[in-house]
C-alpha cells in the first residue's frame, strides 16, 4: 500500500471485465461515481422542486386546497397547514443545498473532471471514493425518511436556529429534526472522504508536465472547494451533533435554561455556512471559466488572476460569516469588521467577473447550449453578487434582513449561479460522460424557457422584499401592507410553475439523448483540455496504456502560427508560437 497509484491498477484492472454490481453499483471508477452523484442530485432536484411548487401555491393562493393533494392532506382537504408549510421551506432548502447542488457540482463534476483533466487514471483512493458516494446516498435516504416519521420533517428552517430547533415541542417535529441532524452528520463524513480524495489526487496524481499553473480552472475551483469542504463541514457536524444531544440526551448546549447559548448555534452554523456558500458557487465559477474560452475561441483572460482570486475567496470566506448575524445581537465594532471583510470578498468575485467579460471581448462567440448557460451564470451571478453587497452593509441589512430580498439574493446566487453552472456543465460534459450528444435545439428551448421563467419567478422577490414581505411567512394576505403586493406573489408563482414545467424539456433531452442521441466524437467542442483526448465515454482507467503528456496551459485557443484555432494540451506548440503560459 506504499504507493497505491494507478500504475498497479493498470496492470491488474484493465484487462478483466467486472460484473454488473462492480460496474454500475459498487463501482470504484470515478466516472461511474460521477454519474451516480449526478443521478442522485437530479432525483433530489425533482423532490426539492415539487416542494418549491407547493410553497409557491400557498403564497399565491393562501389556504386554498392544492389541486390533487387532497389524498395526502386528508385532514385539511388539500390545504397546506402552517406546520407543513414550515416543513416545506425547510426541506426545500436543505435538499437543494445539500443533496442537489453539492452532489452535482462537487460530487459529480468533481469526480468526473479532476482525474480526466489532470491526466490521472482514477482518484487517489478509488475505494474511498465509492464509500463516499454510498455514504452520501445513505445520508439522502435518512433525509428522505424524515418525511415519513410522526410529526413530519424538520420545520425550523434550513438554518435550524436554536432554540426553535432544539426543543421538539416548539416546532412539533420529533424525529424529523433528529434525522435532519443525523443525515447531515453522515453527509459530512461523505463529503470529507470526497474532499480528501480530491485534494490528494490534485496534489499527487497529475500527468507529466501538468504543473499547477497548467491545470484547468475548473480543477483549481474544485480543489479549492475540496479544501473548504474538508474544513467547513466538520464544524456543521459538531453543531448538528450538539443539537442532536440537546434534542435526545437532554443537554443544554443551545438552551438558556441549562446555561446554554442560542447564539452559539448561529455562530457554529454560519462559520460553516459561509464557506458553504462558496462551496456551492466556486465549482460553477470554475465551470464558467472552462466553457467561456472554448466557445469564445480565446484564451481565458487573466488565468493567474483567476487562480489568486479563488484562493483569496477561499481564505476570506472564513472571516465573513458574521454578516449573517447582523441583527442577532452583535457588538457594533464586530459588525463593522464583518462589513469590511464582506466588502473585501466582493473584490475577487469582481475580478473574476471582469475576467469573464475580458474573455468574451472580441471573441468569436459560439452560442451553444453550454455557452448560453455559462453566460446566464455570469449575468445572474452579477445580480446575486450585487444584491449581496446591499446586505453586507448593516444599515441596509437591518431593513431587508429576513425579507424576500434575501430570498431573491440567495436564489440569484444558487439558482442563477450554481444551477445554471450545473446545467452548463451537464450540456458541456454530457458527450464525454455518456458518449452521446445532447440535442441542441431542445437544449436551447430548455435554456431560454428556463432563463425567462427563472427571472419571472425570482426577480420580483426583490420588490416584495423591499416592500416588506417577510421571509418564511405562511400567509402574506394576512398583512394589510402586503395586500397590494399580492399580485406579485401570483406572478411569481406562475413563473415558478412555468420554470418547473420548462425542466421537462431537459428531462426529455437527457433521457432521449442518453439512449438515442448522436454518438459523441472524441472532441466535439474542439477544446484543449485533457478529457477530450480520451474516448467518449472514456474507458475504465481513462486512457489506453499511456497517460497523456502535457506541454502547455489549458486555454491555447487561436494561437498565432497554429493552423487550427485550438492547441490541445497534449500537443506541443510550435517554436515561435506565442504561448500564454
Amino acid at each position, binding site marked *: 500500500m506504499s504507493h497505491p497509484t494507478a500504475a498497479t491498477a493498470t496492470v491488474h484492472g484493465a484487462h478483466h471485465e467486472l460484473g454488473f454490481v462492480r460496474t454500475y453499483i459498487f463501482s470504484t471508477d470515478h466516472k461511474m461515481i460521477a454519474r451516480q452523484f449526478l443521478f442522485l442530485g437530479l432525483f433530489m432536484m425533482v423532490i426539492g422542486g415539487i416542494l418549491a411548487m407547493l410553497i409557491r401555491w400557498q403564497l399565491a393562493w393562501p389556504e386554498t386546497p392544492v389541486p390533487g393533494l387532497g389524498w395526502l392532506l386528508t385532514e385539511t382537504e388539500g390545504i397546506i397547514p402552517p406546520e407543513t408549510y414550515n416543513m416545506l421551506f425547510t426541506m426545500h432548502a436543505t435538499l437543494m443545498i445539500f443533496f442537489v447542488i453539492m452532489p452535482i457540482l462537487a460530487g459529480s463534476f468533481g469526480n468526473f473532471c479532476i482525474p480526466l483533466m489532470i491526466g490521472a487514471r482514477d482518484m487517489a483512493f478509488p475505494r474511498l471514493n465509492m464509500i463516499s458516494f454510498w455514504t452520501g446516498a445513505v445520508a439522502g435516504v435518512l433525509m428522505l425518511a424524515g418525511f415519513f416519521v410522526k410529526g413530519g420533517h424538520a420545520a425550523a428552517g434550513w438554518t435550524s436556529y436554536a432554540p426553535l430547533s432544539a426543543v421538539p415541542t416548539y416546532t412539533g417535529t420529533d424525529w424529523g429534526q433528529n434525522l435532519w441532524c443525523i443525515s447531515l452528520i453522515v453527509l459530512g463524513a461523505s463529503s470529507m472522504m470526497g474532499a480528501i480524495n480530491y485534494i490528494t489526487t490534485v496534489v499527487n496524481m497529475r500527468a507529466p508536465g501538468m504543473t499547477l499553473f497548467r491545470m484547468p480552472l475548473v480543477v483549481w475551483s474544485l480543489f479549492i472547494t475540496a479544501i473548504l469542504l474538508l474544513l467547513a463541514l466538520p464544524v456543521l*457536524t*459538531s453543531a448538528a451533533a450538539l443539537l442532536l444531544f440537546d434534542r435526545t440526551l437532554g443537554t443544554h448546549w443551545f438552551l438558556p435554561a*441549562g446555561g446554554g447559548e442560542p447564539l452559539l448555534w448561529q455562530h457554529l452554523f454560519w462559520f460553516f455556512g459561509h464557506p458553504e456558500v462558496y462551496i456551492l458557487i466556486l465549482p460553477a465559477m470554475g465551470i464558467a471559466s472552462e466553457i467561456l474560452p472554448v466557445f469564445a475561441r480565446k484564451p481565458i483572460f487573466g488565468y493567474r488572476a483567476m487562480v489568486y482570486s479563488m484562493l483569496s475567496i477561499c481564505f476570506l470566506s472564513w472571516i465573513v460569516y458574521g454578516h449573517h448575524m447582523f441583527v442577532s445581537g452583535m457588538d457594533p465594532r464586530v459588525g463593522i469588521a464583518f462589513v469590511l471583510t464582506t466588502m473585501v470578498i466582493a473584490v475577487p468575485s469582481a475580478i473574476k467577473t471582469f475576467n469573464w467579460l475580458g474573455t468574451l471581448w472580441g471573441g468569436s462567440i459560439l452560442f451553444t447550449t453550454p455557452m448560453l448557460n455559462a453566460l446566464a451564470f455570469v449575468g445572474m451571478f452579477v445580480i446575486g453578487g450585487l444584491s449581496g453587497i446591499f446586505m453586507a452593509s448593516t444599515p441596509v441589512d437591518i431593513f431587508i434582513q429576513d425579507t424576500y430580498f434575501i430570498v431573491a439574493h440567495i436564489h440569484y446566487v444558487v439558482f442563477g449561479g450554481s444551477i445554471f453552472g450545473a446545467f452548463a456543465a451537464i450540456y458541456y460534459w454530457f458527450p464525454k460522460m455518456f458518449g452521446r450528444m445532447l440535442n441542441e435545439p431542445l437544449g436551447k428551448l430548455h435554456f431560454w424557457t428556463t432563463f425567462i421563467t427563472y427571472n419571472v419567478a425570482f426577480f420580483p422577490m426583490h420588490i416584495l422584499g423591499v416592500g416588506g414581505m417577510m421571509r418564511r411567512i405562511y400567509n402574506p394576505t394576512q398583512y394589510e401592507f402586503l395586500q397590494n403586493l399580492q399580485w406579485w406573489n401570483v406572478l411569481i408563482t406562475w413563473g415558478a410553475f412555468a420554470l418547473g414545467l420548462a425542466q421537462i424539456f431537459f428531462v426529455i433531452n437527457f433521457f432521449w439523448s442518453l439512449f438515442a442521441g448522436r454518438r459523441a466524437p472524441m472532441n466535439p467542442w474542439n477544446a484543449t483540455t485533457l478529457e477530450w483526448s480520451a474516448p467518449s465515454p472514456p474507458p475504465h482507467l481513462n486512457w489506453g496504456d499511456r497517460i497523456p503528456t502535457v506541454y502547455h496551459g489549458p486555454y491555447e485557443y487561436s494561437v498565432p502560427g497554429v493552423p487550427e484555432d485550438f492547441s490541445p494540451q497534449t500537443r506541443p506548440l510550435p517554436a515561435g508560437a506565442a504561448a500564454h503560459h
Partner: protein
Amino acid sequence: MTPASPPAVDDAAVAVDRLLADIGRLPPPPPPEEGGEGRPWGEPERTPLVSNAVLGMLGFMGAETMLFAGLIAGFLVLRYAAVVWPPPFQPRLPIEVTGVNTVVLLLSSATMIRAVRAIRRGNQAGLVGGLGLTAVLGAAFLGVQGYEWARLVGFGLTVTSGSYGATFYTLIGAHGLHVVGALIWLGIVLVRAWRGRFSARAHTPVVVCAMYWSFVVFLWPVLYVLVYLT
C-alpha cells in the same frame, strides 16, 4: 509618465507566484524530436514528495481538528458565559488522576514513535513490541477514563445537569470515542505487524496509523487544560 509600482511589491508578487508554481512542480517534458506525441507515454515516473496515504491522513487530521475546534468553541462560549465555573453544588473533576492519565497517554505517543523507528530499520520485533505497548497504554488510559466517568455519574454529574456536565461529557466523550477508534485501528495494524506484513521499505499503514494516534494523543492535553484546569 506611467506610475511604476514599487519594486518590493513586484518582487513579492513574483516570489509568491514562484512559490505556488513550485508546489509539486514537474519539469515540462522535452519537446518531441520527430514530432508526434514526444517520448513514449508512460505512467508518471516521479515519486510524490508526500505519499497519497500520508496526504490523505493529513487531510483527515485537518477535518478532525475543525470538528474539535467547533466543540471547543462551544465549550468556551458556555464556560465563559457562566457566572461561576465550575457551578456550585456539582462534583469537581478529578484533576490529579486525570493528570497521571495524561502522562500515560503521552507515553503511548513515545512508544508509538519507537515502533515506527523500529520498522524503518526493519526491526519487526521492535515494531510489534512498540505497537503492543502503545495499545496497552491506550487501553489503560481508556480504562481510567471510564472508571472516573462512572464515579462522576455516581456523584450526580450527568449530561442533563447544566452546561458543566453537558460540555464535559461531550468533549471528553468525543475524545474517548476517537481513542476507541484509534485503538481498534492500532489493533488491526498490530495483528498485521504480528504476521510480518511490514518491512523497512513497505510500512505506510504503520506510519498513517501512528499519525492518527499522535493526533488523538496530542489533542488530549489541549482538552485536559481547557476542561479540567481552567
